[in-house]
């Protein structure tokens, strides 16, 4: 479809046009431009997942092939969710539009598009709520901020709820704790009722449902991928590690996002896990059935998230392990921390996690029985159980990106920092209001790390990249550490665009590079087969 080319009048393009007249947001229709939205979900994936209205469609088309009577479906869906979620009801009712959240959203900061202000993003749905569920909206209409639900509104929802990465940064600054992530989650549930999702979410969700992980790796492929990592580890260290799969009676089951099984720099993080666990002599197993820590169902609906999450406890039970360790991932930990136990607990077939190396009892996970790899590693380091040589990371000047979900949906802030400080000699923090609970999103979270929306991703990640640029210029930072598989997939592109020369690494990769393993040969390269400082032939 060739875009209509309208020739500008002479002088039109270069004429100085101060302040275009502002149109009210309700009168500003949404536009779909290539590069700024994700493809629509595929028919076959919706069929696999049993989601409504499976069909081939494209957001670029005028007709989205929504079934007749969709308005009723959406409004009934809203009514149902209002009665099920106090959060939704309260967030619809009490916003005073004070604007404290407005400039806290990375998409708003990078685009200036007012509908990306969290308050307006919520207002997109609140206006419909007012029209159909409140008296004032029914009678006063637009004066009360209410509007009719029509196809344009639906398209606008789709556009803007898939421009929110559910990062919760706005929620930190809201005087009532209104969480746009919660509104987006419900908004996406409603959209899914009429078959509106994006391919990058429904595809991985369908793969995860049938094959156990988002990438759709079948059991032999998982074993094969890990096997080739084992080969690489042997090349680098001279040590052959022996991971096991679906082994009954292991003490620990390890679950990590499948992004770590394929693609750089995820695989180096995964090699890190393998080396660390081997060095400790940990009695653990991988599972090919529960081979996904992440949960793209969470970006579809709560039911979908629950369906995908089921495998973790079910597999732990089948294998008879004592507890579960989870790898580095962002939204995975929001789900594990705040949802899993409620969905599928109580996990009374597991035991309270105890580190077999240090004896530390993880009381903080006494109900879910699942701990974060960073908690586990930080504990080892504190007890001096690892032989570390941080000089191997001396060529790196590291900064640390807090992933949204572990910081604002969990509070895992200091553990990774303790680890990084123990394994790297050069660590620099980014400016204070861009880290920890105020961290900026990578711009690709909540299922938006597709490639067709690359421009949108570069925009969404700009505030984060801008803070990295600052430490790059000030301290010469050349490595961005994180604990999230989506970060590892998305940040390399972001850095290549905004801050060329800054690499991306998982924290455990840094650990493994510094880890002096028993009986290892003298290492000459790091896990990326790059020469170690002062040891390579090229230096």
């Amino acid at each position: 479809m060739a875009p209509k080319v309208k020739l500008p009048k002479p002088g039109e393009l270069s004429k100085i046009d101060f302040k275009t007249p502002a149109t009210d947001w309700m009168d500003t229709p949404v536009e779909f431009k290539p590069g700024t939205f994700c493809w629509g979900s595929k028919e076959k994936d919706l069929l696999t997942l049993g989601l409504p209205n499976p069909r081939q469609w494209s957001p670029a088309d005028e007709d989205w092939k929504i079934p007749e009577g969709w308005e009723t479906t959406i409004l009934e869906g809203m009514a149902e969710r209002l009665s099920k979620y106090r959060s939704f009801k309260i967030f619809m009712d009490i916003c005073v539009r004070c604007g404290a959240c407005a400039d806290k959203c990375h998409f708003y900061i990078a685009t200036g598009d007012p509908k990306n202000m969290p308050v307006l993003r919520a207002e997109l749905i609140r206006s419909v709520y007012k029209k159909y569920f409140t008296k004032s909206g029914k009678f006063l209409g637009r004066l009360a901020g209410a509007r009719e639900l029509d196809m344009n509104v639906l398209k606008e929802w789709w556009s803007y709820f898939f421009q929110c990465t559910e990062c919760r940064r706005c929620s930190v600054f809201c005087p009532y704790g209104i969480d746009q992530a919660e509104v987006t989650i419900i908004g996406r549930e409603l959209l899914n009722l009429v078959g509106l999702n994006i391919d990058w979410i429904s595809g991985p969700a369908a793969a995860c449902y049938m094959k156990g992980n988002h990438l759709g790796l079948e059991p032999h492929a998982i074993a094969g991928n890990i096997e080739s990592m084992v080969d690489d580890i042997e090349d680098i260290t001279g040590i052959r590690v022996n991971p096991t799969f679906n082994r009954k009676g292991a003490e620990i089951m390890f679950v990590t996002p499948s992004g770590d099984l394929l693609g750089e720099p995820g695989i180096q993080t995964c090699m890190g896990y393998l080396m660390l666990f081997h060095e400790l002599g940990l009695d653990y197993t991988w599972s090919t059935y529960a081979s996904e820590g992440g949960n793209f169902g969470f970006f579809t609906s709560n039911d979908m998230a629950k369906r995908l999450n089921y495998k973790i406890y079910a597999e732990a039970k089948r294998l008879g392990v004592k507890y579960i360790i989870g790898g580095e991932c962002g939204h995975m930990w929001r789900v594990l921390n705040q949802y899993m136990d409620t969905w599928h607990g109580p996990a009374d077939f597991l035991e309270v996690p105890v580190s077999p190396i240090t004896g530390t009892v993880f009381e903080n996970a006494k109900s879910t029985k699942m701990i974060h790899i960073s908690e586990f590693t930080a504990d080892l380091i504190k007890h001096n159980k690892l032989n570390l040589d941080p000089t191997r990371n001396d060529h790196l000047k590291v900064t640390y990106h807090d992933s949204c979900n572990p910081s604002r949906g969990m509070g895992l802030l200091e553990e990774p920092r303790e680890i990084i400080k123990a394994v790297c000699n050069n660590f620099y923090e980014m400016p204070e209001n861009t880290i920890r609970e105020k961290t900026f999103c990578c711009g690709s979270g909540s299922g938006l790390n597709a490639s067709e929306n690359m421009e949108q991703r570069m925009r969404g990640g700009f505030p984060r990249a801008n803070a990295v640029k600052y430490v790059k210029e000030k301290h010469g930072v050349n490595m961005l550490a994180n604990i999230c598989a989506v970060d590892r997939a998305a940040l390399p592109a972001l850095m290549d665009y905004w801050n060329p020369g800054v690499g991306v690494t998982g924290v455990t990769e840094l650990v493994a590079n510094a880890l002096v393993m028993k009986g290892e040969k003298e290492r000459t390269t790091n896990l990326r087969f790059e020469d170690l400082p002062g040891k390579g032939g090229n230096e």
Partner: protein
Amino acid sequence: MKVLFSFLAVILLILVATMGAFITNLHFVFGIIIPYLAFAMFVGGFIYRVVKWGRSPVPFRIPTTIGQQKSLPWIKQNKIENPTSAFGVIVRMAMEVLFFRSLFRNTKTELREGQNGPELSYGSAKWLWLGSLFFHWSFLIIIIRHLRFFLEPIPFAVQILESVDGMLQIGLPAIYLTDAFILVAVTYLFLRRIFVPQVKYISLPADFFPLFMIMSIAISGILMRYFYKVDLVAVKQLAIGLATFQPVLPTGIGPMFFIHIFLVSILFAYFPMSKLMHMGGIFMSPTRNMISNNRMVRHINPWNPEVEVHTYEQYEDEFREKMKKAGIPVEKE
């Protein structure tokens, strides 16, 4: 336009009130019936809204964690912003409700021109916090002060509050600090909706209306106290009558009083159906009022749905041969 509409609506209300005030026959309606109705609508509406919220369960425990979690013993937990005890939550809520903690967080980093090139400095954007704090606290104190009309004898606490509020001892009757504060604060809140472009853009008529209402109520109150004085004894008689459900209508109260009480009544009646309900909602916001002990204590979802899952057996049936080939143990050979 949005502003104008709200402004005209309030002007209209003031005209109605003035009419009521100057037509003696209507005093019974304006002094007794409307206040009762408004109060009933306020209490009824407030309870209705809170009950309605309360009827929707909280399926998941979703606190926004704004600080270090409780994990390893040597890592210092932020016990207030990531609370794992009821006490922590109480402190967190108190900070939020009494001191607007989250608005206070509104910091920003600035690059300023320093002596040796640009320097990074931490400024703050605390005006909204300050304005809101002054506004809400003044409002509260003013309401408490008004108790002296409804109670006999006047409680000691109310007397103390009044004397503190009027401690400047300027003018006769003494000027209350809160009267000045609330006017300044409400004007600030109004002006920022006009002049801060972002806030202007998101504002609705429903945001301006309460501001104009509160402004007019404050002004009518001040006018009544200092300029168009009313018969305080009569006002108190009326107020106590209302409070004890033995309404009496003393004569000669003065018209300004009827304007004031009419506007107050409208605000009260409007309250439950508006965003002003944030007063109740803040206590029930799940991202703030929940204990962040997700992995320690299981949270129960009352409607935890049964969902269709893909079981291990189904999985193994599909991949058994491939698993065996790869040396992965299976349940059924």
